[in-house]
Structures are given as C-alpha cells and as structure tokens.
C-alpha cells in the first residue's frame, strides 16, 4: 500500500495520480517479468548468454578480453551461414520466406530487453540521420543500369 500512502491526498482528484502510478507499476512489472524470463532461459542453458546492466540487459555473449557479442548479431551471422536449401530439404513443406521469417523472429527475440529498447529503430535512426549515407543511397538509387536479373541465374 506504499503507493497509495505516497499519493498526494491534497489533490482534488486522486485518479490521475493513481493512474500514473499504476502505469509505472505496470511498466516495472513487465520489465521484471521480461528480465525473469530471459534470466531463467540463461540459467537453464548454462549461463553462456549474459544479461548485463551496462548493456541494458540486452542478451549478450562475453568473449575473450571481454569482447561483447550481442545475441541478435550471433543470429545474424547464423542467418548468413545457414544453408536455406539444406533447411528446406529437411522441411520441404516450408518456403524460403518462412525460413527467413523464422530467422527474423529469432533475431527479434534475441533483442528482447526489459526496457524495450528497440535496437532496430535505433539502427534505422542512425542511418537516416547520416547525411553522407543518405547521399550514398541517393547516388545508388539514381543508378538505373540494370546489371543482373537474379531470378535468371
């Protein structure tokens, strides 16, 4: 009841203040549930995946000399080296897009963190606020010389 006790009883209406505190509690509870889930997963899989406060609890691996590898980047590398054709031989009823979508899903899960930091949004923001990069994109976009139709290979 500490939340109620700490509420300003001198206000005309308690409702806005209580609702604000409930929202805060809801966010805190969600963060704790998320961190608990990630922590259990880490514990049950040998603790190789770390949840470190200095990295906002985004799942990471700690390599030699304390080199950090975010789990989602490991998934990206797995996507690079994964032989989709081999996967589809195992699951012939699946499509390329489904396998790609599944990898994207795993990558997104690997970005989970209790404060809902959206790594992709930040990556996009870094790119869209880089004038040199945007100019590179404009130049590339203006290049209308079709070099190869990939489907015809």
């Amino acid at each position, binding site marked *: 009841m500490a939340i109620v006790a*700490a509420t300003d009883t001198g206000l005309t209406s308690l409702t806005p203040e209580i609702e604000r505190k409930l929202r805060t509690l809801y966010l805190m509870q969600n*963060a704790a549930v998320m961190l608990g889930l990630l922590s259990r997963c880490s514990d049950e899989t040998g603790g190789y995946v770390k949840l470190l406060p200095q990295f906002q609890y985004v799942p990471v691996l700690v390599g030699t000399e304390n080199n950090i590898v975010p789990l989602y980047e490991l998934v990206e590398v797995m996507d690079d080296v994964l032989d989709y054709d081999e996967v589809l031989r195992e699951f012939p009823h699946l499509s*390329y897009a489904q396998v790609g979508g599944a990898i994207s899903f795993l990558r997104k899960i690997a970005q989970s963190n209790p404060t809902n930091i959206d790594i992709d949004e930040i990556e996009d923001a870094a790119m869209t606020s880089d004038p040199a990069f945007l100019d590179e994109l404009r130049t590339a976009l203006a290049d209308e010389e079709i070099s190869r139709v990939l489907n015809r290979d």
Partner: protein
Amino acid sequence: MCSIATNATAETHLKSLASSDDEDSLAEKLKHLAGDSTVQRAGYLDLPMHHMHGMPSDLKHIRRVRTGRHRTFYTGHHSQCSYTVFYIKKFKKTGVKDELDKTFHRLLKGAVNDRGEGRTIRRPDPSSEEQS
C-alpha cells in the same frame, strides 16, 4: 513469382562480398524472397517491417531487408512484380574489434541517451518533489 534485379552499384557491392562467400548466398536469398511475391499477392519483401522510418521524402519509397549482417536496399512492389536492389550496406565479418562490436556499443549508447521515457520509472516522484 516476381523478379528481382540488381543495378550496377548493387552488383559492385555484391561482388565485394565474394571473398566472404556471402555473394552467392545473398543473391540466392534475394531471388527466393522475391519469388514469394506475385502480382496478386504481397510477399516477404512487401512486409511493413522493411520500411524505414524517418527517411527524407525523396527516399521514403525505398525499403531495406535485413539479410544476415548485411542490409539490402531495394525498390519495387509486388503489384509491379519486380524489385530492384540498388545498395547493400555491408558489415565486417570477423575481428576482435570489428564493426559489430562498435555498432552495438554505439547503438546502446544512443539508446541510453534516447531513453528519457523509459528511465522515468526510476526518477523521484515529481509530485513528491512538488510537495516538498
């Protein structure tokens, strides 16, 4: 099944991936992902997740698909049944202090600087401050 082509710039980028064996797998992946679309049906490359927020108006129509560590930029739509890859942003493959590491630190640093909203739950209660 829709087609996908590369322009000369993207082709140069693709060729530069050849040393890491990523060229063929990326081209193969893009080919199959484009093949998921038809004129009648939107496919993987038409998903909203490939749109980039915050692009200037002249680049609003471009899209980006995350292909492993690389980011492939393209235009086109299933209704045209044709996509064109025009740029591939590459990330380094290996190395102790490689781009992945630096990117991650930069992203999180940016996130920390950007997280005013998320951090309010640990700040002192503004109403308590007002009362005191």
